């Protein structure tokens, strides 16, 4: 051991910021982000078409009603959660019975994400559609392919709007960033065990431990590539997270409907990220982000981004 290593051994990894400090810091950042959005909005010329949907009176009424529902208390939230638990556990059961898509030795499992994310600049926001096709080979340790159409934007790798990238183990953007951040074989197949597995990996962060657990599970599921047994376990694990909520008949970007699964986090003031699942297969068929308070021109409870995810088996990759 040399002197520098000795000094390093004095590092104190037990220090944790208080919940109050973390919450205050996050709130300050969100205020700055919102101010930035507001500045952007007011700076835009009037003639420019605004993509951000305006809050109609009808939407305002719905939003106000939703806000009312949310502040009515735990009775309603508990009812929402009870329904979400039922939906998720039923989907988990269906998933196990579902004949899953499995790529043959020369085939790929392809997950196509059609995303509509807003592109904002000094003059306002415009919708931009991206296509992300991830080709996972039957042996995931061999070369994966990512085809990405950035829409109106320049790609980050080549500057072209369409990029095709190949990388072993899905590490398209560098050796430390795999497209799929978990080895599926590590996921316990029992729902309670899968929940414990996720919860045991919590190392701080997010507005709450429950929120962080929710985000890490949905991050795995949103790849569209999780095999059915592990997917069933993760859906069941989601049902065990306090505050989980479900909304029926939500259409993804391609018009396919499913059940949106989100979570009510008290510290987010209604803002939430949701995954949309097909209750019959447990597959994630899209995602959406809903606004909480008024931000960047969105009113409360409005859709800020929407995607569609489709998983298929294909014989070739680009």
């Amino acid at each position, binding site marked *: *051991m*040399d*002197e*520098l*290593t*000795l*000094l*390093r*051994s*004095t*590092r*104190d*990894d037990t*220090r*944790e*910021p*208080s919940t109050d*400090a*973390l919450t*205050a*810091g*996050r709130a*300050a*950042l*969100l205020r*700055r*982000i919102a101010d*930035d*959005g507001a500045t952007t909005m007011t700076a835009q010329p009037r003639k420019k078409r605004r993509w951000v949907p305006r809050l109609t009176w009808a939407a305002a009424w719905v939003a106000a009603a939703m806000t009312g529902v949310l502040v009515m208390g735990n009775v309603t939230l508990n009812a929402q959660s009870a329904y979400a638990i039922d939906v998720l556990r039923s989907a988990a059961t269906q998933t196990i019975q579902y004949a899953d898509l499995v790529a043959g030795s020369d085939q790929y499992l392809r997950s196509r994400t059609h995303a509509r*994310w*807003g*592109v*904002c*600049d000094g003059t306002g*926001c415009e919708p*931009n559609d991206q296509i992300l096709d991830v080709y996972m080979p039957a042996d995931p340790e061999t070369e994966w392919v990512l085809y990405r159409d950035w829409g109106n*934007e320049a790609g*980050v790798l080549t500057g072209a709007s369409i990029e095709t990238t190949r990388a072993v183990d899905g590490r398209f*953007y*560098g050796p*430390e*960033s795999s497209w799929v*951040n978990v080895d599926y074989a590590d996921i316990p197949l029992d729902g309670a065990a899968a929940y414990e597995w996720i919860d045991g990996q919590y190392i*701080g*962060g*997010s*507005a709450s431990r429950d929120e*962080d657990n929710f985000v*890490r599970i949905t*991050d795995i599921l949103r790849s569209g590539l999780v095999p059915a047994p592990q997917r069933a376990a993760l859906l069941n694990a989601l049902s065990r997270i306090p505050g989980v909520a479900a909304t029926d008949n939500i259409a993804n970007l391609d018009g396919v409907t499913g059940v949106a699964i989100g979570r009510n986090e008290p510290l987010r003031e209604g803002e939430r990220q949701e995954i949309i699942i097909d209750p019959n297969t447990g597959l994630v068929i899209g995602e959406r982000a809903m606004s909480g308070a008024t*931000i*960047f021109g969105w009113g409360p409870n409005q859709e*800020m*981004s929407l995607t569609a995810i489709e998983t298929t088996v294909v014989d070739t990759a680009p």
Partner: protein
Amino acid sequence: MSPDNEVIERSAREPAVFATLYDRHATSVFRYAAQRLGDHAADDVMSETFLVAFEKRASYDTAVVDARPWLLGIATRLMRKHVRLEAVAWKGMSADLAAQIAPDFIDLAGARMDAQRLTRRLAKALQRLSEIDRDTLLLYAWGDLDYASIALAMQVPVGTVRSRLNRARRQLRRAAGIETIEQETEHGRADAAPQHA
């Protein structure tokens, strides 16, 4: 999970996603700042670091996957505003630090002096470090960054980081009276240039 560089790149069009970086790295920034300044000032540094980072996100090098060095670099610069506070804190800290490492230095030095005397000498050596050497040393020791990441954080070449750390190391060794051993073992020692540098 999107890597940090993608989150920052995406935040240009969806500013709200920048909060993801806060969720990932706030604790790490806090720990580094708290060990240097104490918990109270660290709360402010943690919060301010992300406000500055959000403002400067357009200048982030999106080829760099991990944003932690960038954030700790911002935190380090912000801490210079607390120079008076740190000067007081550092005086106590360097003494604590010296006391913690003195027994191991005695092993390195072959028990040439008693622990109390060595602690005093190490504390003095630490206090005499220049500001940039101290920042470099503490990014390594308490920021848990490797040489390349410190270079990113301080926006200097890796060679500069190496020479600053070697200088700090030499001062500590001199204080402990083990210069001769350094000369004997400098070549080929694994710790002189850590594997992750």
